[in-house]
């Protein structure tokens, strides 16, 4: 009996620490997967002076638009074995230059995950690629066809396409009468021969990336009027929202956060207009504060954003998403707090963000790619209905300068029969400071309670005091001291006056003769008598 108990104790002693160790290891593994990015993006060069200069930025933006995190590294900085940590690798080759990194070449041969190859083929890098028949054509006018949508025709000096006939429904590049596939997939390798900085190619690559990641969600299209300041043409904002409301177009308004003078009547008026916009089915989106404007670094920026958002919610304005350039996703998540707390966002075109060196990105839960209104206007669809782009897109429509411009822009949107989604209906949520906001098809909830978006005009303080009296230290003591001194001086002055009056009397008395009243009253009368009396 004793022996069995002993054995049991020994056994538990052996097992317990092991399980503990295993538990720790499992935790460590979890942490590791948390920090690892989903995609490794390897590029050869930025190709600054060529048509391929925007390619890296395009791929990065698309990855953010699809809510994927990535690590970005140049081939020259690539460390051997880096690829094996990733399930998915994208290689972007902007030039025909020879690859000189042996570690990279060896890893390419041995890599077993999914791989997307964009741009010029480096011979011998992938055996599968060398055998793809590529047709190289100089000086062609092409357009990209996707989901039945034909983009604007553009001229390409050096076009490389897979020399095959594109299948129906496949994303394709149309050159004259022939239609080539945008990409070719062989086994684990997907090959995109040509990519340039153009909305059509961007969206085409978006389709390829979406398929490559295996995302099946339907893409949404929203509309954003960006860069609204408190001093923008607020009458035009009201007019635009009225027009959009009348036409049944859901839209979002991008508000630039200004943290100065947040209690000024001008700001109250601005919030009033924003409330009005909300009542007209508009959604408020917050812009990322321009990193150039913030002189005191990111810490200050986050503090200001907390203040701005709190103030907005106080004033009945509920921002639901974030509008930002791609560069935000390169910053450390801790530095951009609270911007990373938004669940959804719109990625605005942001040129010239690519800096050399390795970088890591983070991603929003739901993101949408900004495209210009011209892109929509230039795109032709087969059906009367515009249809869908392959990925989430947001039309960026600047605030019209006048009513004619408003009518023009409205005409474009109405004529295209766009299917626009109300930004509110997307499942947005965030918790910033004391406030938690969620929005869905059922409306906006603040801290769990539904809020009404109906507009009611609130009076704006007319006699607002702009010049605050300065605060002094020890003010009370000094005022007390002042009043004390004043009373003392007052009493002294009173005393002085009394003394002056009395002393005058005393002084005059020195010269007064003591005479009887009669004499005093009639001194002139008596004078001749006195004179008479003198001897």
């Amino acid at each position, binding site marked *: 009996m004793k022996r069995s108990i002993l054995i049991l104790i020994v056994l538990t002693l052996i097992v317990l620490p092991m399980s503990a160790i295993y538990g720790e290891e499992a935790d460590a593994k979890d942490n590791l997967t948390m920090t690892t990015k989903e995609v490794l993006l390897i590029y050869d060069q930025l190709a600054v002076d060529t048509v391929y200069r925007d390619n890296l930025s395009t791929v990065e933006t698309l990855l953010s638009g699809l809510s994927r995190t990535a690590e970005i590294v140049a081939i020259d900085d690539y460390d051997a074995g880096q690829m094996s940590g990733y399930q998915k690798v994208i290689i972007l080759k902007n030039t025909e230059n020879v690859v000189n990194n042996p570690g990279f070449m060896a890893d390419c041969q041995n890599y077993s995950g999914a791989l997307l190859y964009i741009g010029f083929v480096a011979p011998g890098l992938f055996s599968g690629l060398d055998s793809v028949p590529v047709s190289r054509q100089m000086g062609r006018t092409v357009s990209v066809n996707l989901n039945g949508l034909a983009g604007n025709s553009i001229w390409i000096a050096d076009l490389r396409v897979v020399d095959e006939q594109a299948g129906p429904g496949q994303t394709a590049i149309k050159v004259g009468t022939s239609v080539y596939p945008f990409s070719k997939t062989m086994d684990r390798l997907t090959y995109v021969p040509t990519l340039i900085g153009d909305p059509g190619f961007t969206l085409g690559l978006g389709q390829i990336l979406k398929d490559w990641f295996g995302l099946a969600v339907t893409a949404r299209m929203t509309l954003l009027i960006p860069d609204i300041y408190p001093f923008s043409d607020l009458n035009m904002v009201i007019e635009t929202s009225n027009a959009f409301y009348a036409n049944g177009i859901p839209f979002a308004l991008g508000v630039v956060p200004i943290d100065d003078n947040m209690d000024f009547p001008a700001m109250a*008026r601005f919030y009033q207009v924003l409330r009005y916009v909300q009542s007209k089915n508009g959604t408020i989106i917050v812009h990322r504060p321009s990193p150039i404007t913030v002189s005191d670094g990111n810490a200050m920026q986050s503090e200001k954003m907390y203040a701005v958002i709190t103030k907005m919610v106080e004033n009945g304005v509920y921002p639901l998403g974030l509008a930002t350039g791609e560069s935000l996703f390169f910053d450390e998540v801790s530095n951009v707090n609270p911007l990373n707390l938004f669940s959804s966002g719109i990625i605005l075109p942001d040129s010239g963000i690519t800096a050399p060196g390795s970088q890591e990105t983070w991603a929003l839960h739901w993101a949408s790619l900004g495209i210009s209104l011209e892109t929509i206007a230039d795109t032709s669809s087969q059906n009367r209905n515009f249809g869908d782009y392959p990925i989430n897109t947001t039309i960026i429509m600047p605030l019209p300068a006048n009513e004619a411009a408003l009518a023009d822009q409205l005409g474009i949107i109405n004529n295209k029969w766009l299917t626009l989604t109300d930004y509110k209906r997307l499942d947005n949520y965030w918790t910033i400071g004391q406030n938690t906001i969620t929005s869905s098809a059922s409306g906006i909830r603040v801290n769990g309670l539904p809020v009404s978006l109906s507009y009611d005009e609130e009076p704006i303080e007319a006699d607002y005091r702009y010049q605050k009296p300065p605060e002094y230290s020890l003010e009370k003591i000094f005022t007390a001291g002042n009043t004390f001194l004043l009373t003392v001086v007052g009493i002294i002055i009173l005393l002085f006056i009394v003394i002056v009056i009395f002393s005058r009397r005393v002084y005059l008395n020195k010269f007064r003769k003591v005479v009887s009243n009669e004499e005093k009253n009639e001194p002139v009368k008596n004078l001749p008598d006195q004179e008479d009396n003198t001897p």
Partner: protein
Amino acid sequence: MNKDMDINALQAEKKRNQSSLKMGPWSYNYLIKPSTLGVLVLIGLLLVVLFIPPVIGMGDDGSTAAIISGSNLYNLGDLSSKEALAFFQKDWGIMEYFNDTGNAQITAQTPFLNTARNLDRAYTWDGLFDMRFYGAVIALFYLLAMYFLFETVTYGKRATWAYIIVGLGVIIFGDTAYTAWINSFYPQALSFFLVTILGSSLILMGQEKLNDYLLIGCFFLSALLLCLLNQQYALLGIFLGILGINLKYVDKKKHFQRICVICGSLLLVSSLAAFFIMPNELSKLSTYHSMTRGVLMTADNPEQALEEFSINPQYAVLTGTSYYQAISPETMDSQEMAATFFSKVNPTGVVIYYLANPGQLYEMLNRSVDSSFNIRPAWLGNYEITQGYPPGAQTNFFTLWSYLKANYLPGNFGFIIIWTGVLIGIYVRFFRKGIIEKNERNTLRFVGLMTWLFIGLWELYVAIITSGDTDTLGHLFIFSLTFDLISFVILGKFIHWLEKQLRKVDWEARKQAFLQRNKDKQKNREQRGYRL
């Protein structure tokens, strides 16, 4: 009586000088003179601060791009615009080919820049321009200016009090807050020595210490260069030109009088021409600040103030903000901002506004005086990025005076008024004496100081009109400088006076009296018959 004392003192000094002549060669004797010694100390300071790594300088806010482009120099662009503000940039590019930037601008700085560039080319041929060459050119003139200044307060004498005054001068004008400007392309570097030479050459002329023709040349040259620095300085030329013509009463020599009239009229004409020919440098930056950091900041109701300029009152939200703070550069450059804001603000409008609201003008004067007492704007860094200091860090080396000035001097206009009163009270008797005796040369001491005062107050006013209380154009720097110059001269006068008073006292007799006092008491006691 007083005069006799002075003459005695002078003779004593002469004797001392003669005796020291015997002691060593002339050069040694000259070097040991207070003003020369002060300059030598300054050379040492400049070497340590500006030329030997770690190099100190001023961050670049991009306002000088057109000026350096006029000398075929360009920004290498290694730093972002934000970093360029926060860090000093030592290396700049020299254009190798035709300068096609199209915004090249020729100002008074151009000859100095060209000299520095040619020096750099003679020394290295690497296509890089080392800022220190420009610093060296400026430093030369700076040292000359300092020599002049020290001469004005020491009268070229060697005495303990003269060394003390010069020591104070080194502390004030050798302060790194001042000298750091020398390593920068800002107009401050030039105006620093130009303003100093301008006034001190007048005072020296009054003291008859140096050759009149040399001094009048210095005066006119520095006045001309100062007026050609940029468009806003040009109007000063009218005042300086009239002053220059009036200088002919100082001496009876025909040549001297002709030079004064001709140079004075030239100065008048050229400054007027410069005012109309030179491009209006008022950038968006200063226009923005003249409203947000000026008119709006002090207005009781910014919205009403905006309405007076017929600007959308919603712009009131920008009250008190600075150019880089609230709005992104894209918006700042947008058509909308240009049409609804910038096109409606101009200096004339601001002048009229302040005339209608004198209370606000006084408030702005207070604030501007306060901010001018920080000789270095807080947003410009002093170190190079490679030196590893945090962005915007400013050096603390040899900054005693600027520290005291920024933290302990009352920075308001009332103080300046009292200070002006003291200045005039002390010096107006020289002026009066000169006028009564019909000896115009004696008035020059007062005139020199008044020139400084006028330039300072004028620049203070211009600064408020053009850029609110931010000193983006270097006007407040000149005010701050003239304040220091005048204070220094008064201080020198005071120390000299104090020394004279102390010299009158017969210290030996006092000492004896002090030592004797107990004996006397004892004697008295003994006489009275006390016994201890």
